[in-house]
């Protein structure tokens, strides 16, 4: 456990909420920086760039999404949006604007830490060269040879199904919105055709999952997108 200590910037105006986040993060070995407003957050981000940001959207001096967009102009540090807004539109907007994840209040410590770990792992993986072979549970995705096995057995995927799975595997643990998936797989003109996505995801589930009605790996975020679950 000699990993460098990661700093997480908590942008939240509710003091008790900040106290909970600080306690939860500190008890799991993170260094915590805090900001109670957009202005403080911008200063904190530029003065000492954190490894991850927990961002509340409703801030006293503006919308957290503005900070997200500005940070995304120069930083790839994972941003996890923490919000009381639970409508899928809000989630999609934040994810499309570059958020790595979206946590709806209320949530427990374990959920929070799991999301942060996924996001940090991601950020690190993207820093290095992409792994040619990814293993998620029983699923093995060989990017170079376009091969997929589940539990050691070869699975035949169509090119679109492979691209979908490879994309989700690259961002394992993270929700990819319908728009993001459609743009990556079908191109920028197909972003409205969510039914393409649903048909191919259903086919993919049937090939990957033991029980496609109770998917263990390919999780659906209703109205938002899909996520390949981490172990």
């Amino acid at each position, binding site marked *: 456990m000699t990993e460098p200590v990661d700093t997480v910037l908590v942008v939240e105006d*509710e003091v*008790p*909420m900040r106290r*909970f*986040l600080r*306690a*939860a993060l500190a*008890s799991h070995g993170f260094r915590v920086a805090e900001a109670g407003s957009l202005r403080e957050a911008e200063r904190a981000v530029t003065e000492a760039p954190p490894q991850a940001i927990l961002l509340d959207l*409703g801030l006293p001096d503006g919308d957290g999404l503005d900070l997200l967009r500005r940070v995304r102009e120069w930083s790839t540090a994972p941003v996890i949006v923490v919000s*009381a*807004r*639970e*409508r*899928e539109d809000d989630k999609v907007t934040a994810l499309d604007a570059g958020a790595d994840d979206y946590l*709806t*209040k*209320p*949530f*427990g*410590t*374990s959920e*929070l830490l799991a999301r942060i770990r996924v996001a940090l792992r991601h950020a690190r993986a993207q820093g290095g060269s992409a792994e040619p072979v990814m293993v998620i549970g029983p699923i093995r995705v060989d990017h170079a040879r376009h091969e997929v096995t589940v539990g050691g057995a070869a699975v035949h995927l*169509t*090119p*679109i199904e492979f*691209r979908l799975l490879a994309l989700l595997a690259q961002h394992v643990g993270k929700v990819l919105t319908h728009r993001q998936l459609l743009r990556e797989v*079908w191109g920028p003109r197909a972003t409205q055709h*969510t*039914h*393409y996505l*649903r*048909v191919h*995801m*259903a086919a993919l*589930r049937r090939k990957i999952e033991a*029980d*496609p*009605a*109770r*998917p263990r790996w390919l*999780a*659906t*975020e*209703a*109205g938002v997108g899909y996520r390949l679950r981490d172990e």
Partner: protein
Amino acid sequence: MHPYRDDAPPDDPGDRDDLAVDVVIGVVGAGLLLCGPTGATIGAILLAVVLLSRSRPRPGVALHVLERVAACVGPVAAATAIGVLADAHLGLPDDAMLYLFAIMVAALGGRGAGLGAAALSVAAYDFFFIPPRFEFAVAEAHHFVTFAVMFAVGTAMGTLVVRLRRTEAASRGRERRTAALLAFTSDAASAKSVGDVTTAVAKNVQDVLGAHHGALDTEARELAAAIEQQAGVAIARLQLADEARAQALRAQAEELRSSLLSTVSHDLRTPLAIITGMATQLREALPDLPADQRESLDTIVDEARRLGNVLTNLLSITRVESGAELRRDWVPVEEIVGSALDRAGVALAGRDVAIALEPELGVVVDAMLTEQLLVNLLENAAKHTPAGTPIELSAAKDGERVAIAVSDRGPGLPAGSETRVFEKFFRGPGARVAGAGLGLAVCRGIAIAHGGDIRAGARDGGGATFRVWLPGGDPPALEATA
């Protein structure tokens, strides 16, 4: 106020007399000029007659009659005077012309005046000019022709004038009625209530129709129809405006309710997040707590989660009840069932959930709301049945729709509550289980919003079945890609 309304009193026939008298004065003046100092005597007499006829105001009938007589006599007397003088000094070839002119002038007063003047002219002409002069005898027959012409001119002119006057009066009346109709239209257009319209009808109908007694003539009937139509238009306009106002009010109330609920939800979620967060944090930091204290912490976390679910349901029901547009997409049933089972995972812990879906089933729905519907049905089943009893979820095509059923092996529904369970805040008699009674109401709201239906009933072999029908759909055709 109304530029079209003519408040002047109806035409006064006295104006006509004035005109006649003015003409007479003109004629007399010309006569005096012609005769010079020698005609002074006759001129003075004529002037006196004219002045008498001009006297105003007229206090009584006697004077009025006198005036009418003067209007007849004046021009004839003037013609006679001019004729006599002209004969003496200039030698006019035919004095009958002067009398024709006099008759025409007098006839401006009407047919009676024309005929009177004609009679007087015949007498005066016969007496003063036709030989033998100064007696009422006619020597030559052709003078009777002159007399006849004089009567004819008097009658024709008089009739013409009367007819003209009638036409004029009629057009004035029409003008007045049109103005009144316009005034009514303007009143009706500015009316703020149906009461205002009826007031405007009552106020203007008399003006518009004129003082009619008995049956209405064609014109009056047309006007009445116009009033009726205008009033109808005005009332329709008011009803439309009322409706628009009511709709705007409803939309405003809906917006208020919706924004109030999302504010409440938002403001409740943050404290809930703090409670949940702190409790889970404590549970983790104190792994060696005695069992009962640990249970307390678990209860705090569970209750906070339940409150969060109530908020989600409140928002969902607001969304469907506000009539907001649903985001309908074709979605495989399997996908919605999968995500609903995932979300209901905590409530379903320790249960055997059997799933039986017809292959390739799709529904055209709002994915988020439909997931909420299934989560509520699953949680409802889990809440009202003994722990560990099985739950079954099945889906099958039913005509154009897809029926999704959640069945349990619990105690079943209390008799007679099959429809009441979907009412808001309904709770079974002697319900042991805590709950706001919102979950099933949300299910019903979502089903109805999709044009679907939901029903509850007893299950063969014991337990209850909740079945929801949603619009079905085949997977959309895919363009050949990649």
